[in-house]
């Protein structure tokens, strides 16, 4: 054995890393563009769909609706009464984004136009959007279900072991409610399918981004009414799965049906907005748990009540819930466990399969309470877990027959690796940044016996007469390294070089039966079947060699691509011709592997040994929490895993680090935020997943083990790694702050709100004393009393953005590249012209605009606007200078450089211009993501932020009817530098405006029609020091709040000239002139500054119900800026 166990490169590394590997959207050839029409309503009856106009449009080849499928057609998913989702809405839509119709056209523009031409008459109805609403009396029932509770799709009420014995033995108990968010897989390759219908044979070929081709064929065939084998799936690269691609993603069947209707190949690629806003994310769990322990810290009883947000259709919700609750009965060794779990229907995007499958959700609750018990008993958290280890080779409460379990070694590895004992017992200090240490453990199976045949895997090997070997398996490697692992196994079994092994996966015609890569079954199942095929084929090859070499088959050794015996040898390829069963120079062997000893879960059974082996892990997190801003940074992370023996250690470490990173995302930022069931943060810009600089160095540690049940001693790893991060981070934050947060993600708002509560702080704003705010306060008060509803339901119909959506989309603009300022201004003066800087803000927004400009005047080549120079002590920055160029200029003040470097990404900064940054659209995820809001759609529309999620992006000071803020960081810093903007209009008109007076509202400026920001003038004052600080949810995010502070001090350190500007707190950058005045002439301490800023904030603020914390954050940012001066 030489390849198994070694760190080999992915077999296709060269092509894949250079971008030569083709993903579905990269495939060459003519095809139509398929697009999907989705429901704008959370729940509505579909009264009528009229596709006549769309069908008649130029370039449109097919339009399909539910009528194109058999009446009552449903996805199978879990089967039986659980199958509830139609391929296209038939009569009712149950979530925003549900598929209603689909079109195929020659160009994307024609497809977009056709979608708009489809007339759908909806009758919207109120429907529950949260589990709480769904279970309240009178809530609309979304489906007819088999339980006796409204909107409960499945209920489990289960007792394992003897909870009463546990209660009797316990001396301490903790209770609490925990929630784990609905997060998106956010796979980098959006779900994409190319379908090609063959009318003559009545079959369809699919190239599709999937982890499990067999399930795609199953769903597509039954929806199209054709045989399973008539859906042929071809191999193509898939760009990340994490569960999302382990079952149908509801576009494959549409692509196939469109191709059938159009008689031509059709490509359907989901957009990022569709991925985040309509695809199936992780199920949100609300877990109420009570944990009891005895005086030694041994957990004795667990009692849980769990609500799982199913979303609008079942999918895998039932099994996600079952796997989730199993956490309670598989990790430790309580006497007994009782739980009630409900899968609750809500009119939101349905949940789907997601790495970890219910386990991270329940694990958060359990691991948090293990720490709470430890604290109550004064026992070290790692110690306490060591006292609770379940025995090896034993059965757990939930019926798992666990083989090896090296959780203890994992915990010790965390203790040693983080220097846990010494670090935690060192004095903590009382500075603004507090450090905390946290640990959490977890376990996961290696494939679940979830379906008939899920205990089986077939595989085939081909030996070619030139000595090459090919593995054929029906799974699909979406990035886990499965193909490489299988090649390693085949190479070892046949004694050939790894370079001589290739892998054919996916292809349903050319590979044998296999259910695919899900539930962490890839390594165990196909590893075992390919290993078995290899041993069997090696046996046959030995027979052939024995004959040829005149030896006994038992003496033949396969090594280096040759068979050796009796001092002689022969190339393996030369043996192929000797086999009677070989065909066309290929000796093929196919085999079928079955797992022994696992049992299938059935509805009547609540205990089962689902998996052939069980993986364990303990993760340790070290966090720094800034009490000023609520920001949590993970500074060190150790992930210790029991994976048995790794087949490819590099791949295993990759799965550990990648899974931990994804878990950290959910712990600290990721959360799909919805308004009336519609996802608000459906772009990467607003979805706070970790970027490179947000993560610590995650250290993967693999403890020694060998699992007899696993192929080559291996267990699973891919899902295990995402289980502990939530608990580990929550425990570390609790350790740092002495406050326990039970709801992920732990964003700064939650931290600062908890700290304010801990310290008993409350801000008072005396609105009753401020008549200027009464009108706004009254409007806000009316919103929940029906104003929002009226504006949303009726008012929005009158707006231009809404009406524009029923017209054909605007044509692409003409672009005029001006080279001189006067040319540009003359062109801009014509009606319908707008300026184009770098385009980084304008272009993504264009499709949402009611009347996008038909002519864009590009400024990127305007000589006067490209200048960047210092003259007479003033830095003159042309409006078309890029952010990167400005940041690189030696004279640019540091405070501005800091701000520039915090904007978006280097790629954007290389394109985005200074003028464009200043005039970019307002910061508000409702506005930016196309809600028909007051600002986009006119005065009769609501501001969605008043009742919606306004924690991060909206004004806490001075908000009016629109609660948005000005996003520009440059705009926040320039007033602190006394900068002046030169605005240029046609006919040589120039005017100068102080940067402090440039904004008139959120993202709105004093620029007149046809004017440009031609230049920014920054006086250079050598003695001026400055600092810019910013709070965002990820590196490159817009400011949730920011502060720019500049100071000129005299020789004794007295501040004689002070500027203090807060960004993203008020609608426009807010200069705190009263604070500046009070500080002038003083030598303030940080506490002085804080006190003055707090008083000013209290005097002016008028926060929305959930964004008052931003005031604390803003004051904290000023403290940080003071420290950074």
């Amino acid at each position, binding site marked *: 054995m030489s390849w198994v166990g070694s760190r080999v490169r992915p077999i296709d590394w060269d092509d894949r890393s250079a971008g030569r590997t083709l993903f579905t959207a990269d495939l060459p050839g003519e095809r139509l563009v398929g697009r999907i029409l989705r429901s704008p309503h959370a729940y509505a009856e579909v009264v009528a769909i009229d596709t006549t106009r769309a069908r008649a449009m130029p370039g449109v080849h097919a339009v399909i609706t539910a009528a194109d499928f058999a009446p009552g057609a449903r996805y199978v998913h879990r089967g039986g009464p659980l199958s509830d989702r139609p391929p296209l809405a038939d009569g009712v839509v149950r979530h925003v984004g549900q598929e209603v119709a689909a079109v195929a056209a020659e160009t994307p523009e024609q497809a977009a136009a056709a979608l708009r031409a489809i007339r759908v008459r909806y009758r919207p109805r109120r429907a529950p959007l949260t589990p709480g609403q769904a279970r309240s009396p009178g809530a609309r029932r979304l489906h007819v279900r088999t339980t006796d509770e409204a909107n409960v799709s499945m209920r489990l009420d289960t007792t394992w072991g003897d909870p009463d014995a546990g209660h009797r033995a316990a001396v301490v108990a903790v209770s609490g409610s925990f929630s784990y968010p609905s997060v998106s897989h956010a796979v*980098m390759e959006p779900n994409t399918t190319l379908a090609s219908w063959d009318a003559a044979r009545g079959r369809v070929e699919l190239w599709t981004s999937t982890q499990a081709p067999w399930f795609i064929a199953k769903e597509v065939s039954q929806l199209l009414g054709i045989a399973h084998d008539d859906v042929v799936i071809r191999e193509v690269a898939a760009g990340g799965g994490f569960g999302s691609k382990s079952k149908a993603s509801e576009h494959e069947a549409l692509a196939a049906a469109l191709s059938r209707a159009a008689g031509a190949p059709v490509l359907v690629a989901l957009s990022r907005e569709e991925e985040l806003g309509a695809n199936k994310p992780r199920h949100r769990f609300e877990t109420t748990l009570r944990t009891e322990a005895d005086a030694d810290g041994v957990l004795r009883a667990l009692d849980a009540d769990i609500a799982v947000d199913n979303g609008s259709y079942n999918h895998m919700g039932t099994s996600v819930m079952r796997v989730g609750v199993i956490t309670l009965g598989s990790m430790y060794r309580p006497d007994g466990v009782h739980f009630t779990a409900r899968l609750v229907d809500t009119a939101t995007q349905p949940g789907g399969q997601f790495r970890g499958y219910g386990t991270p959700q329940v694990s958060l609750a359990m691991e948090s309470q293990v720490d709470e018990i430890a604290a109550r008993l004064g026992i070290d958290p790692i110690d306490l877990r060591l006292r609770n280890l379940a025995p090896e080779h034993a059965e757990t409460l939930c019926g798992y027959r666990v083989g090896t379990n090296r959780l203890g070694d994992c915990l010790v590895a965390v203790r040693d690796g983080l220097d846990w004992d010494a670090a935690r017992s060192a004095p903590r200090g009382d500075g603004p940044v507090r450090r905390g240490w946290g640990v959490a453990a977890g376990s996961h199976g290696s494939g679940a016996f979830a379906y008939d045949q899920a205990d089986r895997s077939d595989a085939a090997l081909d030996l070619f007469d030139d000595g090459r070997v090919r593995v054929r398996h029906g799974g699909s490697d979406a990035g886990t390294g499965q193909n490489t692992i299988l090649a390693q196994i085949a190479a070892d079994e046949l004694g050939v070089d790894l370079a001589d092994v290739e892998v054919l996966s996916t292809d349903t015609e050319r590979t044998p039966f296999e259910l695919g890569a899900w539930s962490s079954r890839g390594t165990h199942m196909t590893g075992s079947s390919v290993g078995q095929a290899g041993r069997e084929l090696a046996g046959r090859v030995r027979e052939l060699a024995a004959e040829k070499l005149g030896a006994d088959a038992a003496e033949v050794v396969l090594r280096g691509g040759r068979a050796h015996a009796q001092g002689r040898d022969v190339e393996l390829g030369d043996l192929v011709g000797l086999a009677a069963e070989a065909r066309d120079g290929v000796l093929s062997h196919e085999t079928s592997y079955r797992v022994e000893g696992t049992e299938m879960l059935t509805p009547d059974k609540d205990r089962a040994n689902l998996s052939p082996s069980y993986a364990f892990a303990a993760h340790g997190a070290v966090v720094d929490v800034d009490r000023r801003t609520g920001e949590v940074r993970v500074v060190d992370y150790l992930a210790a895993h029991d994976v048995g023996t790794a087949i490819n250690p590099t791949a295993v470490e990759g799965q550990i680090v990648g899974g931990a990173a994804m878990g950290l995302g959910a712990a600290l930022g990721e959360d799909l935020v919805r308004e009336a069931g519609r996802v608000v943060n459906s772009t990467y810009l607003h979805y706070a997943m970790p970027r490179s600089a947000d993560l610590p160095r995650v250290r993967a540690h693999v403890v020694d083990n060998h699992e007899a049940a696993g192929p080559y001693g291996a267990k699973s790893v891919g899902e295990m790694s995402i289980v502990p991060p939530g608990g580990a981070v929550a425990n570390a934050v609790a350790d740092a702050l002495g406050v326990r947060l039970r709801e992920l993600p732990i964003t700064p708002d939650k931290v600062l709100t908890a700290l304010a509560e801990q310290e008993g702080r409350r801000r008072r704003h005396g609105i009753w004393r401020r008549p200027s705010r009464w009108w706004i306060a009254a409007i806000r008060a009316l919103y929940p009393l029906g104003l929002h509803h009226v504006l949303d339901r009726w008012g929005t119909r009158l707006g231009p953005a809404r009406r524009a959506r029923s017209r054909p989309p605007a044509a692409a603009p003409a672009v005029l590249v001006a080279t001189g300022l006067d040319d540009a201004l003359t062109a801009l003066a014509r009606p319908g012209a707008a300026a184009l800087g770098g385009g980084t803000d304008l272009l993504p927004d264009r499709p949402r605009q009611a009347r996008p400009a038909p002519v864009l005047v590009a400024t990127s080549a305007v000589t006067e606007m490209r200048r960047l120079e210092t003259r007479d002590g003033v830095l003159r920055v042309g409006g078309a200078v890029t952010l990167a160029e400005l940041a690189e200029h030696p004279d640019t003040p540091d405070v501005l450089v800091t701000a520039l470097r915090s904007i978006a990404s280097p790629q954007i900064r290389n394109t985005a211009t200074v003028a464009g940054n200043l005039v970019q659209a307002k910061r508000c995820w409702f506005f930016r993501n196309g809600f028909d809001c007051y600002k986009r759609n006119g005065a009769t529309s609501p501001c969605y932020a008043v009742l919606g999620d306004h924690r991060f992006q909206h004004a806490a000071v001075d908000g009016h009817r629109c609660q948005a803020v000005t996003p520009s960081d440059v705009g926040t810093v320039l007033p602190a530098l006394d900068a002046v903007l030169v605005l240029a209009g046609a006919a040589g008109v120039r005017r100068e405006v102080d940067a402090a007076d440039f904004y008139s509202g959120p993202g709105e400026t004093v620029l007149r029609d046809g004017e440009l920001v031609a230049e920014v003038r920054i006086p250079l004052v050598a003695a001026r020091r400055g600092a810019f600080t910013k709070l965002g949810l990820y590196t490159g995010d817009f400011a949730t709040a920011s502060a720019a502070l500049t100071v000129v001090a005299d020789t004794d350190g007295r501040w004689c000239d002070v500027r203090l500007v807060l960004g993203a707190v008020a609608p426009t950058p807010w200069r705190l002139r009263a604070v500046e005045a009070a500080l002038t002439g003083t030598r303030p301490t940080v506490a002085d500054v804080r006190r003055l800023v707090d008083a000013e904030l209290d005097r002016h603020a008028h926060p929305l119900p959930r964004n008052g914390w931003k005031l604390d954050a803003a004051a904290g940012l000023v403290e940080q800026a003071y420290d950074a001066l």
Partner: protein
Amino acid sequence: MAPQHPLVVNGETVEVDVTGMPSLATVLRDRLGLTAAKVACGRGECGACTVLVGGRPVMGCITPAVLVREPVETSEGLAAESADLRACFADTGAFQCGFCTPGQVVHATALLRAGLPPGSEERQEHVRHAMSGNICRCTGYQAIVASVCTVADARETEQAS
């Protein structure tokens, strides 16, 4: 006649039709068959479409082709220059699915050309921040960051000797 626009792509001059304001990524992928640059968001938010324009990394998906006046380099054109980096990626697990990888490699190529600051911690921090516009959902980034630093070290050592 449709407005034509000259582009220099991987050293070759091509005339492309820019009617309808196509993005650089669309021109590369759909008209020139250069599909290494991926489109994962189409909004300038993920870096999968990163290409070099005038040596600087930009988001191809929101760069109007008509505004591109400097030479364009794509992952295909940089395959030889990035060979050592890609090998290091493969050795350390810096890609899994590989969908973000061409964008990462292109961006890292520009960073390596510019040179990294001295000091191993500074290096890591620099790369971590610089590459924050390139989302990777698979790897957790650290192997990517480490690879860029390793290759920078190796190239410097080679140059010194």
